[in-house]
């Protein structure tokens, strides 16, 4: 399959081609790619794409996976409605 048809980040619709182009430009960390493309900033917070991007970085830079840091996982860990927080304390 053609790399521009392979979606790596489903929340933000980012393709493998876009990821590879950035790695070639020297953006070789998940955090940087996240900030440029928004991959990993959607509702799932990179649960799928984070690892896929890390693998691609590992492959293209010849660094072992253990040396590739994943993105920061930030609270609240899953989507929480404002309303749920408001009613929690009532």
């Amino acid at each position, binding site marked *: 399959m053609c790399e521009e048809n392979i979606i790596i980040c489903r929340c933000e619709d980012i393709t493998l081609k876009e990821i590879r182009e950035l790695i070639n430009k020297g953006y070789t*960390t998940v*955090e*940087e790619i996240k*900030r*440029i493309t*928004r991959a990993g*900033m*959607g*509702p799932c*917070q990179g649960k799928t794409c984070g690892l896929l991007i890390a693998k691609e970085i590992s492959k293209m830079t010849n660094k072992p996976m253990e040396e590739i840091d994943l993105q*920061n996982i*930030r*609270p*609240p860990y899953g*989507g*929480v*409605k*404002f*309303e749920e*927080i*408001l009613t929690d*304390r009532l």
Partner: protein
Amino acid sequence: MKNKANFVIIGGGVVGLSIAYNLAKRGIKDIVLIEKSYLGSGATGRCGAGVRQQWGTKQNCLLAKESMKVFENFKDILQIKRDIELKQKGYLLLAYSAKELEQFKKNLEVQHSLNIPSVLLTPQQAKEMVPDLNIENLVGAAFCPKDGHANPFQVTFGYAEASQQLGVEINKFTEVIDIKTRNNKILGVQTNKGFIETQKVIVAAGGWTQEIAKMVGIDLPIFSERHEILVTETVKKILDPMLMSFSYNIYCQQTPEGSFIMGYGPEGEPPSYNMDSSWEFLEIMSKKATFLLPPLKNIRIIRQWAGLYNMSPDKQPIVSKIDQMEDFYVACGFSGHGFMLAPALGVLMADIVTESELTYDVVLDIGRFERGEIIAEPSVV
């Protein structure tokens, strides 16, 4: 990494990169920029992404206005291909007391002296602009249609690319360990990846600037404090302008791709380098945000984080040469507004290091505190 440089800039946030770009643009060679993590990993990448010109002091208004001109023509000026997602749908500043409205009127006079197109609105006019706005207790508002949003990451990477095109060497993931000096002269910068011989150092390290300055024995009158912020899922457009209230203490905007981003100034937060997220923030923010915009109740919060405001005594930037150490310069104390002022701050630092006349009529040198020339900024969240 080069082991010798004309200038070493410490800090790969938007201000450090704007400085690098502006210096290189003036023909200065052999500039090396050092960033301890990735570009924009500090305050720049954690900010609220707002760009506003509605300030209370003439110099903040001027810096913001000149910076906005750069944001408006970013690609052409920097000669790069990068969309910074500029959205100019205005800032709507909300007044909840007669005293606050009076301050807005004073601010407007300052803004109008610089042709910033801000206006006063009644609560009803504010409601027309944002139909979902709860106008309970609102007494009036100020609005500038040219204010808005820009993507901090794209601006930062844009400055980085433009700097590199002009020959600046950028070293990411490189940490400054020490700055070697002798007889008040800089000898070089020791990093975890090697020593760079240089006589000139510019520090734009955001919340950590005072720590770097301590390496050369300089005590800066600034401190860092945690500010928290959150972002929601993307939803359909309901909010055009950035909403902001100083007395109610909140800012909230919908970004061009549809997520809401919002934060508030912490109350009683001690100076620190703490960047942890707190549950209290979510709880207080939920109350504030849903009071202001009731439809937010059904929108999901996706992510929260924290960053450091680097506070100065008058809440205005310090862009200055430091007299006690030869060729040592700092750009700091932005008090939460470094991103939106970065284009102009870079120009000013380039003026200072090249000993040119200042492009803008402002007083941002560190000596202002000793001279008692402090005009504090009243409009800060």
